[in-house]
């Protein structure tokens, strides 16, 4: 049963709003003049304040109120959205997040400091050093200036508004907070007692509000009611004039631009028809707890296994009816599997968004201006994969900024501009996803890495190594070439963790670098963790699965190579491919098949052949992890269940390729 705790709902919603606020503030840092962005940020704040108060997060509401008050000056155009202001606003946003997530351990001092800074900035830059106005009486903004001492309001709610939990009386109280009000109910809609629906609202109100109050302040009162209220607003002093067309605002969102006052009626009328809140797009999405999706995936996995057994049995039957039902179920379960996997796919953009803040903060702290560019945000990946990618990408981006990008002075001296460039890109490549982090920095220094590796005793001096092999030292635990240890990176902790995480996701990691022009770290990842396309092979009596994505080709083992032990190399179209005999690797018993096959697999740049007795064909492999007790087994990355109910092991290709094949064979022979 999913939880419907309103507090949890508020937390989820607030988290989204805060994400939106952060993205908007970061955008604002780049485009400080955009009123649309300022409005979006303001709206997010306002909603957080309102729902925070509603759910009892009083500290959130109070802080956000002060934040909002200060930010209101920005909205009114009195204070420019400077870089400093954006930075402080980001801290304020972080504080709100802390208040929501862990209120007990969040000290109010932080909030006060942030607010002080914010107020200081706002006051310092305001042309009029007047005290920041409180929400109840903001000064009239230019444009929508209110010349009148009050308003006449017509308030007609939708009849079913009570069912949505809105209390019109509370809204009337909010109006009274703005200034003295005269509230007159319109009772003409109220029916006889017998016909009265106690859950429907039949009353409308006419209100005279006296006081120097802006239109926005009134509209803000109704911001949560949305289009369930028809609000007619008429300035009191215009009353005297002959019957002005009443302005109607259905939407309380602040107008995108300070409209010139004389023309105020026109945009307002427009608002009546169109719903202008940009985040109010109609979307039919359902929130589902992640655990339920995992459960669904498990069930589908079991279904696929059961279906495979059915197909196998049906294949032995002569009954056409059984065969056709089995085929039908095969088709259905394949579609169900694809749909289920599709549900779990999330655009990677949701992850990329988080790094903008990281880059922004790092670039500020390190004094290295950086342009952060993301590409392929719409690329979809399994959600578990996305969650687990977050930490490795943080490391890679940190490294790129800290080590990759040079100091602005050094960059300026070269042909590059002082501003560095980090590109985070994702794209689909076959059945894999390629995620890359590129910088336009100095590139890797192979000689320096090599020297460091020799110093650390990772490699004997003088060993011939390709550059690619040298870069692999970066992933060795405790390896760092940074001359100074900074707070961010240079401790050599991280890259080995990155490699481990990526390999844990059955992915691979490559480094490409051009001295002076930059470095690209590419991560190749499978689309999902749950099911892979596999190649089923037989070795002795055992059956094994190879990930099909790693398989390049299959060839017959030449007769001459069946017994020789001296040179385990194949000549495939002029290329020498070393091969491993899986029979000896797995200690298989019985007679080898007279027609052994070589499956050529690739991982990174390396190609290697695996000799099996038989190739059984493609297999939809539902991956089951191996038990913790088998953690010492590195040859296999997992297991799957075959059509006959037995388990088959999935060969860890990366491990086989990375390990020295000949050595392995020898080890196993010694054991045997």
């Amino acid at each position, binding site marked *: 049963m999913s939880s419907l705790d309103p507090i949890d709902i508020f937390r989820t919603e607030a988290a989204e709003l805060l994400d939106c606020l952060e993205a908007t503030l970061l955008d604002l840092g780049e485009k400080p003049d955009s009123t649309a962005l300022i409005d979006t940020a303001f709206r997010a704040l306002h909603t957080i304040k309102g729902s925070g108060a509603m759910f009892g997060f009083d500290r959130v509401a109070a802080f956000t109120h002060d934040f909002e008050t200060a930010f209101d000056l920005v909205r009114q155009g009195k204070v420019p959205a400077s870089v400093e202001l954006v930075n402080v606003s980001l801290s304020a946003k972080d504080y709100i997040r802390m208040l929501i997530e862990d209120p007990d351990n969040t000290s109010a001092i932080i909030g006060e400091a942030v607010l002080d800074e914010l107020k200081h900035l706002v006051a310092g830059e305001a042309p009029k050093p007047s005290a920041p106005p409180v929400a109840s009486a903001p000064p009239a903004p230019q444009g929508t200036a209110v010349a009148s001492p009050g308003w006449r309001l017509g308030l007609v709610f939708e009849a079913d508004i009570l069912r949505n939990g809105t209390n019109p009386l509370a809204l009337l109280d909010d109006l009274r907070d703005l200034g003295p009000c005269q509230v007159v109910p319109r009772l003409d809609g109220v029916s006889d007692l017998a016909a009265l629906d106690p859950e429907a609202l039949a009353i409308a109100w006419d209100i005279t509000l006296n006081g120097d109050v802006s239109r926005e302040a009134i509209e803000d009162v109704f911001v949560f009611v949305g289009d369930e209220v028809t609000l007619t607003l008429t300035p009191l002093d215009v009353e005297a004039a002959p019957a002005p067309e009443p302005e109607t605002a259905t939407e309380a969102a602040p107008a995108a631009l300070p409209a010139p006052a004389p023309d105020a009626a026109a945009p307002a009328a427009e608002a009546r028809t169109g719903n202008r809140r940009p985040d109010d797009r109609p979307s039919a999405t359902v929130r589902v707890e992640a655990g339920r999706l995992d459960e669904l995936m498990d069930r589908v996995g*079991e279904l696929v296994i059961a279906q495979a057994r059915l197909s196998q049995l049906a294949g032995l039957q002569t009954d056409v009816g059984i065969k056709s039902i089995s085929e039908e179920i095969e088709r259905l379960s394949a579609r169900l599997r694809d749909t289920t996997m599709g549900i779990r796919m999330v655009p990677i953009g949701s992850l990329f968004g988080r790094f903008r803040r990281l880059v922004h903060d790092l670039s500020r702290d390190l004094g290295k201006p950086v342009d952060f560019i993301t590409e392929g945000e719409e690329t979809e990946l399994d959600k578990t994969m996305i969650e687990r990618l977050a930490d490795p990408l943080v490391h890679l981006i940190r490294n790129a900024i800290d080590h990759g990008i040079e100091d602005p002075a050094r960059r300026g001296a070269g042909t590059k501009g002082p501003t560095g460039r980090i590109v985070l890109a994702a794209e689909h490549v076959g059945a894999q996803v390629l995620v890359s982090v590129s910088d336009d920095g100095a590139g890797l220094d192979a000689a320096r890495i090599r020297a460091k590796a020799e110093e650390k005793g990772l490699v004997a001096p003088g060993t011939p190594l390709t550059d690619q092999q040298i870069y692999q030292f970066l992933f060795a635990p405790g390896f760092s070439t940074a001359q100074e240890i900074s707070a961010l990176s240079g401790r050599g902790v991280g890259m080995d963790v990155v490699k481990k995480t990526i390999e844990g996701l059955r992915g691979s990691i490559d480094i490409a670098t051009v001295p002076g022009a930059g470095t690209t770290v590419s991560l190749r990842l499978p689309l999902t963790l749950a099911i892979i396309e596999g190649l089923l092979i037989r070795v002795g009596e055992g059956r094994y699965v190879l990930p099909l994505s790693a398989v390049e080709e299959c060839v017959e083992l030449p007769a001459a190579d069946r017994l020789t032990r001296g040179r385990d190399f194949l000549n495939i179209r002029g290329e020498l491919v070393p091969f491993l005999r899986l029979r000896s690797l797995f200690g298989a018993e019985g007679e080898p098949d007279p027609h052994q096959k070589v499956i050529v697999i690739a991982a990174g740049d390396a190609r290697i052949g695996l000799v099996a007795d038989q190739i059984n064909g493609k297999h939809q492999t539902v991956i089951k992890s191996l038990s913790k*007790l*088998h953690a*010492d087994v590195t*040859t296999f990355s997992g297991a799957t*269940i075959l059509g006959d*109910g*037995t*388990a088959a*092991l999935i060969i860890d290709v990366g491990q086989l390729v990375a390990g020295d094949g000949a050595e392995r064979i020898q080890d196993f022979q010694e054991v045997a």
Partner: protein
Amino acid sequence: MMAETAESVGQDGALQVVMLRIGAETFALDAGMVREIIDPIPATRVAGARAHLASVVNVRGNVVPLADIRERFGMPQAVATRDTRFVVIEVAIDGDPVVVALVADKVFEVTEIQFGERQSVPKIGTSWRPEYIKTIVKFGEEFVIVPDVEKVLN
């Protein structure tokens, strides 16, 4: 959740156990850790795994290690007989619950053993590693081994 209940000895010193025979010895497993007892099913050998965990089996859609603890107690390997059963247990390994199928030559009964009948592990007269054994209990005329399953497996 059921794991590590081996110490769940009742107030009266009684412990519910499943009695089983492995090789020539009788073992008592805390009934709380036993999930089910199944007939032998085909196992898949795992190359490179430790000798007492040499294969895996499919238990209700999950691939679990098949543990043959004979080797741990210095007993010779044996082939399955009509009485052979797989006892599926859940045991905490470094704090995480792990499901394992344990090969037993015969499963006898679920019974209670008395705390008072505990015998200290003899220092001589056995080549067993003492950490594999929690205690030895006298049951009727027989001595029954209460193994420390986590240590035996890991």
